[in-house]
């Protein structure tokens, strides 16, 4: 967005900042192309009907508006999109993609933006906590005693057919996370106390 007016009071400055956008200053003309290349969907054909937001299970419970991200993509508003914490509220259920009348895949637009944000080191802390969980246990949500009891009650083995049962495969998973730099990124960002 355009530069904020400078008031002595920082909170007032923020509140009175000029919120209009000027494509010449604010938009990145390569953004829509990058998003379309990574997501594999022609985001610029979005006609803003709102079916995606209407279908979204996250939208009624949060400030997440996927239509808004589609709009920002088309306007090249890269900075505001990648820095918006709402970007991480998508559960990737793909309902919007099932229903989009223009046959686009809004979920993949979000995934593309998350990739771009992560590459810039912009990720929410709890997401990085999940990376560490996977590094340690092979699971974003590791098995627990309660879960084990429930599985036994249902006649299942306490541990599922994953790294929970075969911890010998954990080094391979750690290797993958290290090879793509995910673990290092998580450590770095968490160490910065972001």
């Amino acid at each position: 967005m355009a530069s904020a007016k400078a008031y002595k009071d920082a909170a007032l400055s923020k509140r009175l900042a000029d919120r209009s956008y000027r494509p010449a200053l604010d938009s990145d003309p390569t953004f829509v192309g990058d998003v379309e290349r990574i997501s594999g969907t022609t985001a610029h054909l979005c006609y803003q009907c709102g079916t995606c937001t209407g279908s979204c299970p996250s939208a009624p419970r949060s400030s997440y508006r996927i239509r808004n991200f589609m709009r920002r993509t088309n306007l090249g508003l890269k900075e505001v999109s990648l820095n918006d914490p709402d970007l991480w509220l998508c559960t990737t259920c793909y309902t919007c993609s099932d229903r989009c009348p223009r046959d686009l895949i809004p979920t993949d637009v979000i995934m593309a933006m998350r990739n771009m944000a992560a590459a810039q080191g912009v990720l929410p802390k709890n997401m990085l906590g999940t990376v560490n969980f996977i590094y340690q246990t092979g699971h974003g949500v590791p098995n627990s005693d309660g879960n084990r009891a429930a599985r036994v009650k249902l006649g299942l083995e306490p541990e599922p057919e994953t790294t929970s049962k075969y911890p010998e495969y954990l080094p391979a998973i750690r290797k993958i996370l290290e090879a793509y730099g995910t673990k290092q990124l998580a450590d770095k960002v968490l160490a910065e106390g972001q």
Partner: protein
Amino acid sequence: MVYSGKKASESNEAPVEPRIGVFICHCGTNIAGSLDVIAVKEYALTLPHVVVSENYAYMCSTPGQNMIHDAIEKDHLTGIVVAACTPRLHEPTFRTATANGGLNPFRFEMANIRDQGSWVHMHDWDGGTEKAKDAVRIAVAKATMLEDLYPMAVPVEHRAMVIGAGVAGIQTSMDLAKAGIETYLIEKEPTIGGRMSQLDKTFPTLDCSQCILSPKMAEAGRMPGIKLYTLAEVEAVEGYIGAFDVTIRRHARGVLTPDEAAARGIVGGGCTGCGDCSQVCPVVRPNSWEFGMAPRKAIYIQHAQVVPLIYTIDFDACVKCGLCETACGTKKAIDLNMEDELFTIKVGTVILATGYETFPIEEKSEWGYKLYDNVISSLEFERLICASGPTIGHLIRPSDGETPKSVGFVLCAGSRDNTGIGKPYCSRFCCMYSLKHAHQVIEKIPGCRAYIFYMDIRSFGKAYEEFYYRIQEEGAKFIRGRVAQIQELPNKNLLVVAEDTLLGMPVEIEVDLVVLAAAVQPTAETEVVRRLFGVSCSADKWLLEAHPKLDPCGTTTAGVYLAGVCQGPKDIPDTVAQAEGAASAASIPIHSGQVELEPYYAQCVEKLCAGCGMCVGQCPYSALSMIVADDGRTVMTVTAAKCKGCGTCGGFCPGGAIRMQHFTSPQILAQIDAFFLGGEQ
């Protein structure tokens, strides 16, 4: 003129006691759901002269009509009253049923207990019932006094006239001529073609507009069935359906056609369109056809494909130096002393196709049209992007002649505007041509950005939504928000300010050129022509069709039809479709050979007429005149075919000498008495 039958008032038969049949329609629940139809039926039986009273679910159905015709035979009725909807809907139906029963069809009277009864008193059962009883009583009072009337048949001239030679007028004329009707095509400009000939391409097919229109122009110009008068306007209109006498003013062109030259005895003379005259002409004027963006001489043609290819002298600009006469040489086509010519044509039916113009967008000052160099109208854009236009198809910005690298398109520029400055209606084709414009700049100027500022994209026609998709795919940027203002920057670029309502943020976009999709309005001449032919217009000044759904080409004036945008904004496919519809409608009376007129005309009772002549000037239809009667007195007489039965003269005549058939004074007084006296006469 054929007049059949005799006047009832002069009948020698002994008067018979009136016997009236009353039929109450339920109209499903439209009437029966809001008032007591049984009570109305029983009430009718108590009225004087009523011998039968019935009710039925749908009187307009075949069983309902049969009830009328059976009752006439069985009960020897002399008058019929149907209490139902409006005469406008079903008077013809019930008249036919009355005639089928053996009565004169004009012995039928309708009581409107639906539109003026149950619908307005939907929640007042008792009040609605009482009002319906009143309406029936009034109708019965009139029905007892109705007399036999006979429609008048008038012959229809086997010729038609089309006013306006845009694509609507051209299509209508060609259809009529192909149907064997001699058609006069009148155009105020020196060439036919209209707005469509100014366009570069047409949506959604991207056909070149002139490429698809010029074959029609050429064909219309040479069809023997079409008599083409360009540079001509309607001066006066007299007459009625079947026999309109239209006076045409043919403006002095200053140039003779080969035929006109031959008529003056100049062998092998007349204009060949060579253009030698224009080359030597020293006077330069802006070419209005190019919106002043190109020059023309005082002797000119508007563009290369004009029909007819005859040069025209602009006598307001011409200095009569005579250089053109010399250049023309032995063809002797130029007559600098030519004067306007007036002549009258008799035609059976008339089609108005007077088209549109863009509204003066400069009146909406926030967009800076005519204030900022680089804000242009959509029609100006058409000329600038057109290969035959002033820049040979190179889009430039007017301030410096540079190629624009970003263009903003402002939709609804004056449309959907209730301020009184713009137009409240949707101009209907701007969305689509603006999409086309965006396509053209993206296609012609590599890297050029197109921003479309819109409120809604109305892409409703066949293959239109697909065209919208295509333009979006090509990369045009759509910003949903009406442009609030445009500011000019020192480098003559424009800052377009709007709200991106989808993002909920204000937006400012700097562009090189702005194109305003201006609202359209009827041409100035439309109002003149409308008054001459007595055609109504709606509140927004477009010509009014007889019925928006069921009679979209007709008007309330018999024998006058509408084609194209003069009736309301429409694109080329809709215009041509309506033109073909109007041609069909206008050819029906002509091919029938005669039309029946309602026998509601005024009659002069000569023995009461004092010959004062004051009524003659009152008549809006010039139907009255003074004659010398057999006894030598001067009296008024009515030309029945011109009379519309409006009653102005009848109400005015101080001596009560004018009798309005079907609305005679005794009949109307009987209705008033019935209302006030409650049936006790």
